[in-house]
């Protein structure tokens, strides 16, 4: 989430207030996180998140990749700029990798 600068604070405050009143569920989205694939590397390679967090991977390489955690989740092939999201509803360590380039590995630690 972008941190509002001083000029935006009044506006931003109004938005947050509205969201809190009308859409309490959206509060969780503030914790949602992104992983980028750049140069055949998951960045960040390791993430610590809370149960209920959604992680979105974006492939920014010119080569397709996948995001696979054996038995847990498996993306389709992600071409350039394609995204894959997964919401972690259980605590635990999720090791994952790219099934096309298995030397690419990552870890999501869910508390």
């Amino acid at each position: 989430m972008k941190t509002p600068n001083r000029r935006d604070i009044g506006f931003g405050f109004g938005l947050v207030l509205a969201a809190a009143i009308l859409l309490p569920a959206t509060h969780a989205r503030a914790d949602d996180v992104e992983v980028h694939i750049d140069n055949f590397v998951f960045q960040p390679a390791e993430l610590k998140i809370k149960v209920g967090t959604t992680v979105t991977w974006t492939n920014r390489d010119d080569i397709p990749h996948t995001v696979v955690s054996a038995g847990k989740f498996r993306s389709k092939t992600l071409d350039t700029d394609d995204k894959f999201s997964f919401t972690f509803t259980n605590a635990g360590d999720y090791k994952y990798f790219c099934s096309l380039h298995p030397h690419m590995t990552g870890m999501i630690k869910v508390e």
Partner: protein
Amino acid sequence: MSGHDHGHDGVSRRKVLECMTWAGTGVLWTVTGGVPRSLGIIDSAQAATAAAPGMSFLQISDSHVGFDKPANPNALGTLEEAINKINAMPAKPSFMIHTGDITHLSKAAEFDNAERIISQSKLDVHYVPGEHDFLDEEVKFYRERYGRGTKGAGWYSFDAGGVHFIGLVNVVDLKAGGLGNLGAEQLAWLEDDLRGKSKSTPIVLFAHIPVWTVYPEWGWGTEDGGRALEYVKGFGSVTVLNGHIHQVMQKVEGNVTFHTARSTAFPQPAPGAARSPGPMKVEDAKLRAMLGVASINFKQNEQRLAIIDTPLQG
């Protein structure tokens, strides 16, 4: 094989040199891929093959049909240039092998386009899949087109010109943190396929990912490739060909020569020379010097193998 001029004495040194001229700045290498005298079986190998004519075949690789990024916005066009180059060769090779990544995203249209262009060579083509050819949800497009008569994920062997060719698949069941993978079933098949073969039979192994360890940091190697090499190392002449790394690299180890081919689509950096093995962007004027095909001339009675790498533009 059709198209090969048996009237000539195989591929003579002069012919090879002619080819080199044609290849411009192409790399010619000859290796003692034959049977070392220390094994004491060179005489039998020569006797067995003395009367046989030489033969040649071509390797193309990593066409990535469908790739359209800045490193080469027209991968289909450069594939067509490679095929035109092949069609202009003074001596038609016996056949062609394609060492995988025919397509970029395994789309039906990409396979169609590749087939349309490659078939213009009018050569028999023996394929093995690259990881980019197995991206469709049901993993059926490659198999339906090229998998007929193959085992498992697409491995097979055949004989041509006295040489035993083995196409291997090392792009499935890849494990986290690992390299290319052949798997127990394929290795058992390979061991069985070679059982009973005369040790003087020249062997050509081809696969997409290098069967030898080139650069594990970028996944350029095969986890259980050593097992496959164990099975072939007793043979007098073994040639291992691959694609995947989009650049020429070679190594000789005992009776085994390893050789990797250029892509017809885009170059990749030398091991460790960039942050990733992704497509290397070069000036348009330089691109075609970094793409190309390889022609392999096998002259049995000399037990010598010559591989000529030909860039699309020298």
